[in-house]
């Protein structure tokens, strides 16, 4: 059971590299930096162009893990301490999309698409 599970996870990860590798390489989508520092998001408001997909580059400068989460964007991603992750965001309709750190609810922010 354990080996089967390991194989399953390994298989999924390999499949992922195959799928995600070329896709991310061919993507000219804009990158927007977001930093978690001193238990807050920097910046706490991000303005993006509506109807344009983009990549959110989230860096966690805290000494503990954070979880970038947004109910509006359907994203829930752990960002280990000192790590950077890319979050692909689909083209957004004009509007406001809230996000927060699920491990530290005091850290909140929003994306404004216009």
């Amino acid at each position: 059971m354990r080996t089967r599970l390991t194989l399953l996870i390994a298989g999924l990860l390999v499949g992922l590299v195959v799928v995600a590798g070329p896709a991310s390489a061919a993507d000219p989508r804009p990158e927007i930096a977001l930093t978690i520092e001193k238990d807050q998001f920097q910046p706490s408001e991000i303005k993006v162009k509506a109807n344009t997909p983009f990549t959110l580059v989230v860096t966690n400068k805290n000494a503990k893990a954070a979880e970038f989460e947004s109910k509006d964007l359907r994203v829930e991603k752990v960002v280990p301490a000192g790590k950077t992750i890319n979050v692909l965001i689909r083209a957004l309709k004009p509007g406001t999309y809230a996000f927060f750190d699920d491990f530290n609810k005091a850290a909140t922010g929003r994306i404004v698409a216009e």
Partner: protein
Amino acid sequence: MGGTFVVTLREGFEAALILGIVYTYLEKIGAGRHFGYATRGGALGVLASVVLGVVVTALSGPLLDFGPDVIGLGVIFLAVVVLTWHGYWMQQHARAVKGEVQRRIDEAQATHRLWIIGLIAFTGVFREGAETVLFMWGLLTQATSTSGFASALGALLGLVAAAALGWAIFRGGQHISLQRFFALTSGLLLLLAAGMFSTGVGRLEALGLLPQSSTAWDTSFILDDQGHVGSFLNGLIGYRARPSFIEVGAYVLYLAVAGSLMFRGNVSKPRPSTPQGKVPAHAT
């Protein structure tokens, strides 16, 4: 301290609920000596969570960007499948077991399917497990300072409280009738699975694997899904303040399909479970 307590309580609640239900279930159907299936499943879930937590910390690049997403989605849909399967099976049993008289179940059949119980325990623990491991790990590395220690302690207490809830469900489950237990838990698990299914479909939508649909409604002014109550209900029955049409559709579709699968038997005549109708006269 209060903040970290709430985080781990919420992360651990689903696992505690599911474990509480499966242990009670095994006990109720007279398969108490098969607790090992649930225990092994839960323990494997903890192991997988720790492994994933360590791997995520070590990874970087596209693997870190997408790996946890793919695993998370896999676990969500696996959980939906096993919960549905189990719910269906439980209904079959509820019909077969008329009153407490015939509570002994068909042993061979049960053992054959007990690994599903293990799988349910596994997905229940693993779904939020890696997150909890990373959260706890981050806190423990900072536990040397006084405030860090308080935070870590709060988080530990949150896990203890979640475990106590699971235990309370198990204890409470002993005192209600088998029928009521089946009815209560199949309803609850149905809603839980519907919420999971809808969440999984919403993730697919966000990842661009499903077409994007607009927001069906906005009830965030009544109950925000980011607050304590809202996010609790989000985990339990899939409450969303601003769901998309696809998510709502997925929720309703799941309820309709799984619900009719599970409760169909209440309308049609129950099939006798004992071969050749060898039901003792006093049991009818």
